[in-house]
């Protein structure tokens, strides 16, 4: 049956990718099984834990709840697309520096939810970080190290913005 599935094309981390799968197949499973991008994880499969979080057309979504047909033509960004040319994203660096990652199951989702937050709100308060990450569950860190990682990344970003502003003067 699988040879007769229609083509579904998406931009994944900036690259055009085409799969031939059942339109009901979950985006999470397509990413992991068909495109071999195993960063996004399946935690609960119910949209409760956020470990499958990716960005779809600029919005954070739980990829376990997206039938891949709905991703046709969409721009998908996974955790694999956060680093550029081998250089870690500032959030990835601060998660490493602050102990924001332990077992790693929640980390890709935490990074994507944090990246979504920082992009729209470069200087979030602790309360805003908590709200933005409320849909991402961690069972190792107790969350504080994760919140501190996001705060640290935001502070570093604001420091570098300040430096740039100084240079511009």
């Amino acid at each position: 049956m699988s040879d007769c599935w229609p083509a579904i094309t998406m931009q994944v981390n900036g690259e055009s990718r085409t799969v031939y799968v059942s339109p009901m197949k979950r985006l999470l499973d397509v990413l992991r099984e068909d495109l071999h991008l195993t960063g996004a994880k399946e935690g609960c499969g119910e949209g409760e834990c956020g470990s499958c979080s990716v960005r779809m057309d600029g919005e954070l979504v739980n990829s376990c709840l997206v039938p891949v047909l709905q991703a046709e033509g969409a721009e998908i960004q996974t955790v694999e697309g956060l680093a550029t040319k081998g250089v870690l994203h500032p959030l990835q660096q601060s998660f490493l520096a602050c102990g924001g990652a332990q077992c790693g199951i929640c980390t890709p989702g935490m990074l994507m939810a944090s990246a979504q937050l920082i992009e729209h709100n470069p200087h979030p308060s602790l309360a805003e970080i908590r709200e933005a990450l409320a849909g991402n569950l961690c069972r190792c860190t107790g969350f504080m190290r994760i919140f501190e990682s996001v705060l640290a990344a935001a502070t570093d970003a604001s420091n570098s913005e300040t430096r740039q502003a100084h240079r511009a003067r």
Partner: protein
Amino acid sequence: MRGNSEAHQLVAPGSLSAVLELLAAEPGVWTPIAGGTELMVAYSAGRLNAAKLVNLWGIRELRFIDAADGSISIGAGATFADMRRHAGLCEGWPLMARAASWIGSVANQTRATLGGNLVNGSPAADSSPALLVYDAEIELISVRGSRRIPYCEFHTGYKRNVLAPDELVYALHMPRRFAQHKQYLRKVGTRRAMAISKIALAGTALAQGGTVAEIRLAAASLAPFPARLYKTEQAILGLPVTPETIAAARNALLAEAAPIDDIRSTAGYRKRVAANLVEEFLIEAAQEEAQP
């Protein structure tokens, strides 16, 4: 993950009219799916009964929020993220925007739609109490045309509604006439995010000359579907907010509410907390009028 993707057919006709034609050609056969925050959960658990699904996600005719002088219209395909970000909705119908901000998490709000929330028809639906106290109307559409009915007449029983097999929810409309009203919304659940309500109460009330001239109360999780609390309203209407009025309102609510015991809470807890919320709202409304 227990769902079998090959056991379900999912099609994307692409436009609203094409979806309506499909529903009309085979009424009751096709299950519409929008953001998937309900149906895909069932699918992953291997308990999605719908064999044939028709995609609504991405249909632009359904995803809009239009604020006019006298009203606002929200397309069934608008997401909760769309709603909480809409300045006109936040300003004119703050309870609706607040309810939208409480649903699930960021990643649920970007996908869950207003139409989906209502058609799913959970007794705990987050958007329903606010819609009810704003006198919302719901517009249904099919190839036969469209019809508008008061939203309070949409739900007819537990997970049952008035939708015909060939109909979709098109939009919700709310009048702009509550600016002078004291407005209230409180959701009680196990945690701030991601929690389904144990109980939620919304209210709009107009105090004039020391008495309650208008009041609308609506609750989630007090009945098989979200509903207005007409008898409780009647116990308050036209009276000053006194300890006697509050006691009468509490008694009316305890008599009117018909919650259940379930995994999230008990009937007794839900009734008692609902009565407390009504009392809190009345006291806030009275205080506001006392300090003009």
